[in-house]
């Protein structure tokens, strides 16, 4: 599913361009340090292989329609994440510039959705954790199907988020996601089955090609479990969070009669409150418009709330990012102190 230029605002498109360009630069640096000419040629030829493999259509059982291989997970298993990311990004650049798949500004989003997510999320956290270096058919099948499905679902979710944040389309987030996820779930399962079939064929006939897949560490497996748990808590369990005031709000209500103190009339307070109101893209853990609407109608009988899920997921990601960055900086500082 290629994101299209006309559905993006310049800010959202530009932000994803910056992320994807940064990842290309970083991956290129990683690859340059290895300086292996044979792998350079292999990457080029495998990029062309993805083009070619996408032309071989197959019938999807029970639907009467046909599909083709995406190739993201397969390339990552064969080349590793850095090289696969560069290879997939190059295929997407050619598709965008010469076959009008998406567009120039949407290229950043497409690289993120179809190259970054399978290479840096689906492969290390799902495929490698499940399949590792095992030659067990069951584990390869489970790894391929779950990683390909998760990669496609994350890509579809990302398309919906990019479209919603751009505010060009009037399709509501919940309708759009309900349309996108079931289709991509089906496509993901078929992609996983074909990827498993290709990997099995290669493992039987040319096992040396798969030698690059490394065994996951125990820490990585624990981390993966914790990330999945955090996602489940933020994404689903948050629906059932209590709507009663928390301890502080309860105490405030008991002492002053109000759950929140009203702000003072000082200009600095007003400026900061206005800035917070503008910057908070999910106020009160919900969509901006929806939270207003719910306040007006005061009717939300179903606990299932996409805005709350999104807030939970984004919150988990942001905390993960912040904690990871802090840890990285502290480690760097400790290493510098030890050197000096």
């Amino acid at each position, binding site marked *: 599913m290629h994101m299209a230029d006309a559905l993006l605002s310049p800010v959202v*498109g530009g932000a994803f361009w910056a992320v994807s360009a940064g990842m290309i630069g970083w991956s*290129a*640096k990683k690859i340059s340090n290895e300086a292996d000419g044979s792998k350079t040629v292999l990457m080029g030829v495998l990029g062309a292989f993805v083009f070619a493999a996408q*032309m071989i259509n197959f019938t999807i*059982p029970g639907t009467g329609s046909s599909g083709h291989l995406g190739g993201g997970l397969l390339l990552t298993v064969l080349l590793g994440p850095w090289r696969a990311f560069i290879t997939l990004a190059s295929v997407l650049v050619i598709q*965008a510039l010469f*076959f009008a798949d998406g567009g120039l500004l949407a290229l950043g989003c497409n690289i993120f959705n179809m190259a970054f997510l399978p290479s840096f999320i689906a492969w290390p956290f799902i495929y490698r954790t499940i399949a590792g270096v095992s030659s067990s058919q069951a584990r390869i099948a489970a790894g391929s199907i779950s990683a390909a499905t998760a990669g496609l679902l994350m890509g579809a979710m990302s398309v919906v988020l990019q479209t919603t944040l751009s505010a060009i389309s009037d*399709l509501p987030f919940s309708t759009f996601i309900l349309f996108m996820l079931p289709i991509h779930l089906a496509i993901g399962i078929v992609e996983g089955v074909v990827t498993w079939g290709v990997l099995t064929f290669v493992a039987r006939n040319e096992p040396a090609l798969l030698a690059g897949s490394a065994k996951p560490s125990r820490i990585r497996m624990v981390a993966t479990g914790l990330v999945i748990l955090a996602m489940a808590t933020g994404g689903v369990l948050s629906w059932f969070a209590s709507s009663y005031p928390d301890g502080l709000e309860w105490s405030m209500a008991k002492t002053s009669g109000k759950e929140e103190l009203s702000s003072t009339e000082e200009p600095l307070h007003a400026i900061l409150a206005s800035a917070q109101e503008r910057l908070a893209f999910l106020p009160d853990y919900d969509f901006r418009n929806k939270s207003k609407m719910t306040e007006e109608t005061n009717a939300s009988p179903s606990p299932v709330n996409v805005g709350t899920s999104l807030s939970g997921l984004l919150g988990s990601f942001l905390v993960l990012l912040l904690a990871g960055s802090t840890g990285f900086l502290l480690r760097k500082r400790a290493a510098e102190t030890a050197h000096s």
Partner: protein
Amino acid sequence: MTWRQRPDFSEPPSCPLPVSDSTALLLLAMFVLFVLSVPKYDLAGVIAFAAIPSLLVTAAGIPFAPIMKRLFIASPFILFMAAGNLLLDRAPFHSLFDLTITGGMISAAVIVTKTMVTLTALLSLLSCIPFHRFGTALRSIGVPEVFVTQLLLVYRYSFLLTEEAGMMQKARDLRSFGGKGNGPIVTARLIGSLLIRTTSRAERIYMAMCARGFTAALQSRPAAPLTIRDKAALALSLIMFICLRLIF
């Protein structure tokens, strides 16, 4: 993408451009950003920007039919999203005689027109720049050498492998009766076979390239920095785009 819709990798004819290729790519990026910054209900603003790809297509003598064909192939998702606006936003926007034009009609038209304008500009400009010049232009604007080499290799070998994949698909179709053998499992073996052939081809290519002095990068031409003429063209275009946004 089916075998009959296989991509045409043939090299486009080289057209002389008044600026360097790298400047043309920067101008294209600037143009796309300006078009996409046009508000949701401003159809006139998008149509004003259509003048630029129209000028490019007519001045360079680019055949319009292949561009339209590509736009048609790229359009289903856009049409779906535009239809969403058409159905969901029914607030009256204008009234023309007895016909009420809704906000959804305008925003849907803006989505479709933006797609046509940006993709026509992209395809017509890229049809003026042969791929080897495109690689040099990317180097000039600071794209990493590894990535440019990768793009050049993918483009070069796509010719060979699409041909090979097409032959494999044709052979499978000729041997399958009543749709048998067209399922994912058989196709996975076919793709696996293509993959193994591809990797052994990569080894042969690498050895041939090493024999000709290959050192992990395809450096055909050195990157050229932007000249004063290029910078002037960028500044003038920026002023023109700002004027278009302000006037329409």
